[in-house]
C-alpha cells in the first residue's frame, strides 16, 4: 500500500456526487414546473414563501397530499425547489473544501445564486401574479439545469482525463451553435406556453412559425453533428459518440412530442383529411395530454443539457490541444492508416 498516495475520499465528499445529485433533481423539478404550467397551477398558492400562511416546510402533509391537484403540484414544486437549493449549498461546501480548481468553486457558487434567482422569480411570479415573470421562470429552469449539467461534467473523469485532441474543424462551432439554437427554441416555446390573453393571433402565429423554423434548424444541426462525429477524423473519438447519439434520440423524441403537443392542444388544422383525425376529440387536462405537453417542455430542457454535454466534450479536447502545442493530433491520414492496419 502506498502510504504517500492521498487517501481516497468518500463519494459524498466528492464534488461530482453533489453536482450529479443537483442535476438529477433539477430535471424532475422541471417536470413538476411544467405540470404547474400545463395545469395553470402557478397561482394555486397565493402567498410566498409560505403556503397559505404556513411555513413552506410545515404545511400539513395531509392537506397537501389530499388537497386540490393544482395545490399539490405547486406546493410540491416549491418543496422540490427548496431541496435542490439545499443540494446546491452542499455542492458549494464540498467544492470549496475538496476541489482545488478556483474557477470551479466560484462556478458552484454561481449555480447557487442561479437557483436562488430562480426561486425568487418563482416567488415574484406569485406575489405579482405576472405571467411574463412565469415565462422568465420557465426559461430559467432549463438554463439552471444546463448549468448544473456543466458542473457535473466538469467534475467528471472525462473532464479530468481528456487528453485526446481534436482538430478544430468547426465541430466546436457547430456544437456551440446547437446550444444557442436550443436555448432560443426554449424561449420561443415558453412564449407560446405563456401567451398573454391579448396577444393578437398574428403574434401567436409568428411565434409558431419561428418555433417550427427553429425546430427545422435544430434538426439539421443535430443531423450534421451526428454525421460529422461518425466520419473521419472523429470516428476514433469514442467520447463524442455518446452525446451525438443522445442528441439524435432526444431530437426524434422531441419532434414526435412537438407534433403530439399541438394535436392534443389544438388539433391539426387539416382534420378533414382523414377519418381518424375528423373523429378525434381533444381531451382537456387528460392524463396523457398533460404528460405529452409537459414531456415536450422537459425534453426541450434535456436537449439543452445534451448540447452542453456535446460542447463540453468537444471544447475540453480542443482546450487540451491549445494548452499543449506538442500534444498528439490525429490527422486524417493517420486515421486512414490506422484503419488500414
Amino acid at each position, binding site marked *: 500500500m502506498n502510504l504517500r498516495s492521498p487517501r481516497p475520499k468518500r463519494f459524498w465528499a466528492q464534488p461530482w456526487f453533489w453536482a450529479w445529485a443537483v442535476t438529477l433533481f433539477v430535471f424532475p423539478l422541471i417536470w413538476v414546473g411544467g405540470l404547474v404550467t400545463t395545469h395553470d397551477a402557478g397561482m394555486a398558492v397565493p402567498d410566498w414563501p409560505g403556503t397559505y400562511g404556513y411555513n413552506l416546510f410545515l404545511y400539513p402533509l395531509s392537506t397537501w397530499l389530499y388537497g386540490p391537484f393544482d395545490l399539490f403540484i405547486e406546493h410540491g414544486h416549491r418543496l422540490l425547489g427548496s431541496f435542490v437549493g439545499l443540494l446546491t449549498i452542499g455542492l458549494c461546501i464540498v467544492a470549496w473544501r475538496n476541489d482545488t480548481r478556483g474557477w470551479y468553486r466560484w462556478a458552484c457558487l454561481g449555480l447557487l445564486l442561479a437557483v436562488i434567482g430562480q426561486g*425568487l422569480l418563482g416567488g415574484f411570479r406569485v406575489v405579482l401574479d405576472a405571467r411574463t415573470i412565469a415565462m422568465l421562470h420557465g426559461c430559467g429552469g432549463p438554463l439552471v439545469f444546463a448549468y448544473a449539467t456543466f458542473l457535473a461534467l466538469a467534475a467528471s473523469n472525462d473532464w479530468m482525463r481528456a487528453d485526446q485532441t481534436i482538430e478544430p474543424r468547426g465541430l466546436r462551432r457547430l456544437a456551440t451553435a446547437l446550444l444557442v439554437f436550443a436555448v432560443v427554441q426554449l424561449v420561443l416555446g415558453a412564449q407560446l406556453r405563456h*401567451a*398573454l390573453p391579448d396577444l393578437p393571433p398574428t403574434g401567436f402565429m409568428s411565434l409558431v412559425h419561428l418555433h417550427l423554423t427553429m425546430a427545422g434548424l435544430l434538426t439539421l444541426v443535430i443531423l450534421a453533428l451526428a454525421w460529422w462525429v461518425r466520419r473521419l477524423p472523429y470516428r476514433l473519438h469514442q467520447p463524442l459518440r455518446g452525446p451525438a447519439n443522445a442528441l439524435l434520440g432526444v431530437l426524434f423524441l422531441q419532434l414526435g412530442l412537438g407534433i403530439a403537443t399541438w394535436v392534443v392542444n389544438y388539433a391539426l388544422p387539416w382534420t378533414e383529411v382523414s377519418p381518424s383525425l375528423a373523429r378525434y376529440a381533444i*381531451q382537456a387536462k387528460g392524463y396523457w395530454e398533460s404528460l405529452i405537453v409537459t414531456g415536450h417542455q422537459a425534453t426541450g430542457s434535456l436537449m439543452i443539457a445534451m448540447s452542453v454535454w456535446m460542447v463540453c466534450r468537444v471544447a475540453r479536447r480542443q482546450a487540451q490541444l491549445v494548452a499543449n502545442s506538442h500534444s498528439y493530433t490525429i490527422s486524417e491520414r493517420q486515421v486512414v492508416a490506422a484503419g488500414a492496419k
Partner: protein
Amino acid sequence: MFSSPQIILFPGFVNAKYRSMKAVDVAKLPGAQGSLARSTTLGRFIEQYCAYAILACCAFAGCGRTEFPFRPNELHAASLVRESGDMDPKPVAADAAKVVEAWFGTPDAPKWPSDLVPEDTTIVVMEEVARCAGAVGRAEDEIERGLFRKHCVVCHGITGDGYGPAASLLAPYPRDFRRGSFKFKSTPVGYKPTREDLRKTLTHGIPGTSMPSFQALNQSPEFAEDIDSLIEYVRFLSIRGEVERRLISKAVREGMALDTKEPEAQQIAISVIQRWKDSEGSSAAIPEPPSLSDSEMAESIRRGRDWYANELTACVKCHGPEGRGDGPSQDYDEWTKDWTVLAGIDPKHPSEWKEMKPFGALKPVLDRPRNFTWKSFRGGGEAKDLFQRLVVGIEGTPMPPIARAEGGNPGLTDDQIWDLVHYVLSVEDDS
C-alpha cells in the same frame, strides 16, 4: 410561544390583489396570524425592494400587467360603416364598449346590469361568472378562480370573440359568442341554447375541431363544478357581446346615442337578456328511435336514401350524391358572411377581405359540409343527435332545419326523418 406545525419561520408575502381582497380572512387562518402579524421589517424590506428590482427588470416586457380589457367590436362597426365610407368605426366601437362596460363590468370585475333587469339565476348565475372571471389562481379561501382564462382564453379570447392568440391557426375558427348564435343546440333557429346544450358541448367536445372535451373535469370531484361555472360565463359573454353588437348596429344605422341613459339602448339590453330567459325550456321534442329488425332497418335506409336525394330535403346540394360533403353548394358560415357578404365584401378576394384585417378579421374559410363516410359528427354521432340536427338545423351555417310535418304543415314526419337518419348513419366509403 409557537405551537406545533403552525410555526411561521418566514414572513409571508401574499399576492397584493388577494391581500386587499381577503386580508381579514387571511388573518383568521391559524398559521396566517403569525404570517401577517410577524411581517418583520426585514420582510417588508425584501418585499418592497425585491419587487421593485424585479419590476424594473421586467418593465420592458410589461410583466406587471395582469388586467386585460374586453376588446371593442370594431369588426362589426367596420362592416356596418363600410358602405358609408367616411365614418371611422373605431370611435363607434369604443363608445359602445364604454356603455357595455358600465352595464357588464370588465373581465376582472364582471357585473350584472341590475338597474335594467334584476339579477336572475335562470338567466345567469353571477356567482359562477365571478369564479370564471379574472386571473387564474386561488385566493385564501382556496376557491379556484379565472376558469375562463385557464381553459378557454387562448382560443376564444378574453372577450369571447373567437379572436384568442391561437385563433388563426385553428380550423374551424373558435366560436365568437357575441353574435348570440350557437351551432349545436336543441332549440330552434333564433333561440338561445339551453344550459344542457352548452354542457354537452363542453363535456364531449367537438370531434375534428380544437374544441376539447372537458370530461376530465367532470370526473374529478374538485373540478366537477367548473363546467357549470364556464356555462354561466359563456352565457354572460354572449349576452354582453350581443348587446354591444346591437348597440353598434343601432348607432350606425339609426344614429342612436351610445349612452347608458338612452332608453333605446336600455331596451336593446333588456330584449337580449329576455331572449335568453325565454329560450330555456324551448328545446325541440326528440322522439325515441324506433326499434327495427334488420329487414325493417334495410327498408328504412332505402327510404332514407330517397329522402336524401329528394328536392324537399335538398341534402345532395351540399353533402353530395354519395354523402362525401362534395355537393355543388359550398358556403361560408354566418360569422364570416356577417362582415364579408353583408358588408359587400367578396370573401374569395384577399384584396377585399384584407381591408377588414386591422379590425380583427380572420381569413374567410368555407364551412365544409360533413362527409358522412367518415362517421364524424360534430354535434354528436348518436341517432338522436342526428335527428336533432335535422329538425333544428345548425344555426349560423348553411345547414337548415328540415320542415317537420306538424299541425297540418307540409314536411317530413318523424318516421321519415328517422329513415333519413338511418341512411346517413349507414353511408360507407365504397371506394
